[in-house]
């Protein structure tokens, strides 16, 4: 009966972010929040295990105060309880800060058999939180997991390391970060959404975590961001005669030294 924790990030939906054509600045004023996609896989995997073999799953998130909007969403996906740290420091937090906060929160909450994270968040995609968290907690970490099982206190995983698939085992406690291919998160039913209101959530204040200001200051600071815009020649041949188009393209390729 494993005791599981799933960590998630409340991110802006990157599909709602617009680029200002004038100066390529980013406009996220209309972007809605969502639980980062790969974190949904992490929550789902933990929930599936608990449904199958018993145990409990809690959720934990560190974000700005807006993270409160994520609580019912998270609880509707299976966890029994959600812990949250909603603090302005999250606005500019990098993975260094995030891992510090999550590790301190977990030390405060108590021990878990296995801690699940997504491979990376959909907005920043740092792909660091899982391994960093494990390092800070002194736990082993299995990353890039596409399949896993828990038998007793052993987690058996298949990790995808680019050029090979490895079958690995690790004894509790450990941290696991999962790939999106590990499962397809189910859509919560109406009853699950409405049931979320009855489940507990607990705020943890940053000031109660015993972190120094240095631990809450990002080491990687974002200096600026601008939309990526393609500047291509856009020479498109669209006459009704395909042969004519082909002749022109062949000539263009030759001019570029490509044929």
């Amino acid at each position: 009966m494993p005791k599981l924790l799933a960590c998630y990030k409340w991110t802006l939906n990157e599909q709602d972010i617009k680029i200002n054509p004038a100066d390529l600045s980013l406009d996220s004023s209309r972007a809605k929040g969502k639980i980062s996609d790969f974190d949904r896989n992490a929550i789902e995997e933990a929930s599936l295990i608990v449904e199958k073999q018993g145990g409990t799953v809690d959720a934990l998130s560190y974000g700005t105060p807006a993270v409160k909007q994520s609580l019912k969403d998270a609880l509707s996906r299976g966890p029994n309880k959600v812990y949250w740290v909603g603090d302005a420091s999250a606005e500019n937090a990098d993975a260094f800060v995030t891992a510090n906060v999550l590790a301190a929160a977990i030390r405060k909450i108590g021990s878990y058999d296995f801690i699940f994270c997504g491979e990376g968040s959909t907005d920043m995609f740092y792909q660091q939180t899982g391994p960093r968290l494990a390092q800070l907690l002194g736990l082993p970490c299995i990353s890039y997991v596409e399949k896993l099982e828990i038998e007793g206190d052993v987690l058996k995983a298949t990790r995808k390391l680019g050029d090979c698939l490895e079958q690995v085992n690790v004894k509790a406690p450990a941290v696991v970060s999962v790939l999106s291919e590990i499962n397809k998160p189910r859509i919560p039913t109406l009853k699950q959404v409405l049931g979320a209101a009855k489940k507990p959530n607990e705020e943890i204040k940053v000031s109660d975590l015993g972190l120094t200001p240095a631990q809450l200051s990002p080491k990687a600071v974002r200096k600026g961001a601008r939309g990526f815009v393609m500047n291509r020649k856009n020479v498109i041949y669209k006459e009704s005669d395909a042969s004519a188009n082909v002749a022109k393209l062949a000539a263009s390729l030759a001019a570029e030294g490509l044929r």
Partner: protein
Amino acid sequence: MSIYLTEEQELIGKNAQGFAKENLDPIVVELDHTGNYPADVVKKMAEQDFMGLFLPAEFGGAEAGYVSFVEVIENLSRSCPAAASIVVNHSLAVYAIQRWGTAAQKKEYLPSLASGKTLGAFAIFENGPTPGVGPDALMAVKKAEGWVLNGTKTYVRNAGKADVYVVLACSDPAAGAKALTAFIVSSKAAGLTVGEPKETMGLKGCPVADLNFENVMLAETAVLGAVTEGPELVAETLAVAAIAEAAQTVGIGQAAVEHAAAYSKSRVQFGRPIATLQAIQTLLAETATDCHMARLGIRYAAELLDNGEPFQVEAAMVKQFLARLHSKMLLDTVQVEGGFGYSEFMPLPRLFRDIAGTTLLDAPADFPDKTIAAALLA
């Protein structure tokens, strides 16, 4: 009333949108071509708790309220209005039984309707000018053993797939439509047959057929509500239908305007996207505004229902508003897309045919105006 949705209602709407994208988008074109009842998808909708959405938990319902109901219906309709129609028409039977049923009737029918194990339908219309008048009218005659029903109900949606029909029959030929009585009829009732499936202009996949009654015997316990309560039951249930179908209409309109907007950004003519042309912007803006305004009216009417307040005038208003605008919305978005918009491989022609079904049916054309005027002139 709050203009804003609660957290739960927002989540429910978002999840319904995700459900529609995952399960309805892939089947919608084929469903429109074949009209084959999408049993798999109906099962999945039941698993999401859509079939007992506003029922109390004691009957297995989700108790999600009517605002959630219209959020779900609109989001389903943005992808597949036909699938939403199945849920809407099932929900009318559910509403009627929940509202007028005896404790025994509710216990017998509601749990399996809520779980989706059984499908409901609501049969009101006939070939004659009003129910209870004409040679085919469904007449109910009181006997010692119960009631005997003879006649035909037409254009019953979900007919043939439904297990439970809420049916309006005339119990006094002299009084005609004023003497309607509601009955709960099982699809297995002896003497009940379903006519040939009708091929409709749109909403294909939602079954439509006639119900033929030949000496169908019903016990006294089949009467839903008081014997004389039929007309009230019809008016109120059709008001719920008006709200739900308005949500379908707005869903279709929203899908159309978003498609047309995306199209106008990429369609380049005379060196620039047509989205930059004033004429195009006007067509898009009017459609988007009509949807937005209607949505708020629908939400308001749904909230009145949630609060147990009178809602029929407000329901009539959203129906009337959309009846005036729905064809404009689709004509305008087709206009934006030009030749492409008119082509069958694009979604707009199908949406056009679907929207005709969601706004016009289920009530005589003058019903909304009469209801609204009656309230003003009282």
